[in-house]
């Protein structure tokens, strides 16, 4: 399988503290890869490095055959890497639909004067953007589509905000989706729904997915491959069963050398 994203000896430190330590990672086209690890293992930092929020101290990030280190975040996203945020960073005062249309900025071309004069080109582009947003939201069914599209984002429930984060990311028409704890704070029913949704995202949306998740049921349900991080170092990689029973992973989660069947999220 061709690698869509490849990290080569990626390193990043903050004030002398190594957060990512010579990390190598490959994500193949169409794969779903989960990143697990205890809090502070460097998972979110990894996402921030890939999306250009931080610049790495060393190493390469190759996306679709091109080194993207040093590009501005909006350019990286425009190349086809979109992410969600663990802490939810929606445009709260904009409507649900606008949250998605706002993400199409990089794919649209109308100049300000064209928009101000409503030239046919600007109008056509607006119609396309509108249709695209409706299509992306329809993926989530009645959770986001229908009457909810005109609601301000702040009126959404917590779980729906998480869904909108994903919808917004798909609005950038990416090839690779980075999901940062998509099931955090959800109840079991919603978590189950999220597991299915991620599967559908690959099947129907055709996205390659790199996901950070703490809930091991979700990880088990979706992953082709699991990567475990601790202190910025990759400590295990393989299928879910291989990683979950790896003694080093168990140790990283529980802090002692223990032999348990299944590690639990902290």
């Amino acid at each position, binding site marked *: 399988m061709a690698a869509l994203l490849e990290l080569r000896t990626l390193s990043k430190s903050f004030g002398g503290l190594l957060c990512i330590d010579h990390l190598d990672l490959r994500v193949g086209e169409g794969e779903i890869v989960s990143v697990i690890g205890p809090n502070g293992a460097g998972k979110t930092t990894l996402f921030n490095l890939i999306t250009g929020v931080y610049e790495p101290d060393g190493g390469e990030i190759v996306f679709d055959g091109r080194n993207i280190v040093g590009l501005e975040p909006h350019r990286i996203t425009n190349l086809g890497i979109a992410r969600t945020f663990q802490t939810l960073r929606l445009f709260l005062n*904009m409507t649900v639909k606008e949250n998605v249309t706002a993400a*199409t900025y*990089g794919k649209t071309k109308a100049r300000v004067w064209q928009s101000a004069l409503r030239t046919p080109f600007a109008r056509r582009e607006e119609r396309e953007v509108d249709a695209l947003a409706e299509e992306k939201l329809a993926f989530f069914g009645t959770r986001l589509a229908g009457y909810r599209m005109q609601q301000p984002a702040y009126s959404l*429930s917590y779980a729906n905000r998480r869904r909108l984060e994903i919808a917004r990311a798909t609005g950038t028409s990416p090839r690779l989706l980075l999901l940062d704890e998509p099931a955090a704070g959800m109840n079991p029913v919603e978590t189950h729904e999220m597991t299915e949704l991620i599967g559908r995202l690959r099947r129907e949306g055709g996205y390659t997915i790199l996901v950070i998740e703490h809930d091991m049921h979700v990880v088990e349900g979706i992953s082709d491959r699991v990567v475990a991080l601790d202190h910025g170092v990759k400590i295990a990689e393989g299928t879910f069963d291989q990683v979950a029973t790896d003694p080093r992973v168990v140790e990283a989660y529980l802090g002692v050398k223990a032999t348990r069947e299944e590690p639990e999220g902290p």
Partner: protein
Amino acid sequence: MPRIGTDEWVEQQELRTEYYTGLTAPARRAFDRVGPGPRFFAFLAICAAFPFLTDSPFLIRVGVNVLLFALLALGLNIVVGWAGLLDLGYIAFYGFGAYMYAWVSSSQFDVHLPTELAIPLVVTASALLGLLLGLPSWRLVGDYLAITTLFFAQIFVELALNLDRINLPWRDQPLDLTGGPNGIPGLDPMRILTIDFLQTRDYFFLLLVVFALVVVGLYYVNESRTGRGWRASREDPLAAELMTTPVNRLKLLAFAMGAAIAGLTGSIFAAVQTGVFPQNFEVTLLIMIYAALILGGAGSISGAVLGAVIVASVPEILRTPENARLLFYAALVAVLVATVRPWQRLAAVAAATVVFGVAVHELVSLAWPAGDEGASAGGSLGWLLDSWILVPAEHQDTIGNVGFVLMVAGLLALTVLGGDRRLVVLVPTIYLAAFVWENRLIAQPSVTRQLLFGALLVAMMTRRPHGLLGTPRVENPI
């Protein structure tokens, strides 16, 4: 508590549609049903009819001021309302546009460009200056950006005041760029195609056309990818950047567009008053523009326009004592009608106020005859007020000042008291307000304007912080 299975939005759905109550509700609902387009054309039609309804040069001049203010507020709205950048240097672009127009259309350098060339030149130069002064927004946020841009505004005024004697090595005489404190007088009137702009009325129509174009353009831009990009960067710059929005470029674009509109407005302003002077571009004006925008509702085009209409026209009404008096009592009655309910209580308050006034009047006349021997109010309401309001012949100012302080205390008390106690304070406060008005305020229109303007801003913000036509916002809890 929301019903189970219903989120907050659905829960409040009825509240939103049934929001309007009272007598005016049908009218307001009808207003909502009319789209923004027809509303805008109705507004334009009223404005266009205005110069035909009056001959007074003063009123036309007020109309010109309203439109100038509206344009300024619209430009500021791009930066503050949409992009969410606190730009306190905005006034410099207005001033720059005015001076730039003066340089290319006066005897200062003996350059007299045709207006068709001068205006694009001014707008382009202002936009470039906007790009330049917008650069700090890449590094500075919030109040730090505000203070830095405020320095630019201050620097502009300093430059305008002092760039009248620049010694250049290759010139014998010092170069006079701005005319210093005296400014640059005697600008050419505008002449577009074959139309000469000679009277204020001509400029009113020019401004109206410019205003219409700017509003339509901004409305469309706001609905476009650019508008969404601005709003997204305002909500959460990092998330916007990660959703393909080039935040820094959009910030500069907002600065440049705001500056272009301000520069354009400045050039027309310069032509209207046929001169530019440093004192036209001071921080007070900046505050007025901000007040107009926030009062109307930042982020809303109609809000910016409404705010500008209020800020630029209401103070003018206070200029003549007769109008000011009518406005004052009308406003007093309106506020009472709007806030005191039900009508029985309102009637009681009104009766009590009259009785209270007459009683005070009689008592003071008995105890201290000089207490009501001052000049009578006169005018159309004079006969009513004469036996109600005291006008002391001696120590009028001192007594008036005491009354003023007491009235402020009464007003403040009204905002915290509830129930019957509120009514008890209300009656003497109304009386005091009228007393202070007749004895102190009406004679000093400029002070009164400032007082009322300040009080209006505070009252407005504490009641409706999102402005008259703005939308309430939730702040991002980051």
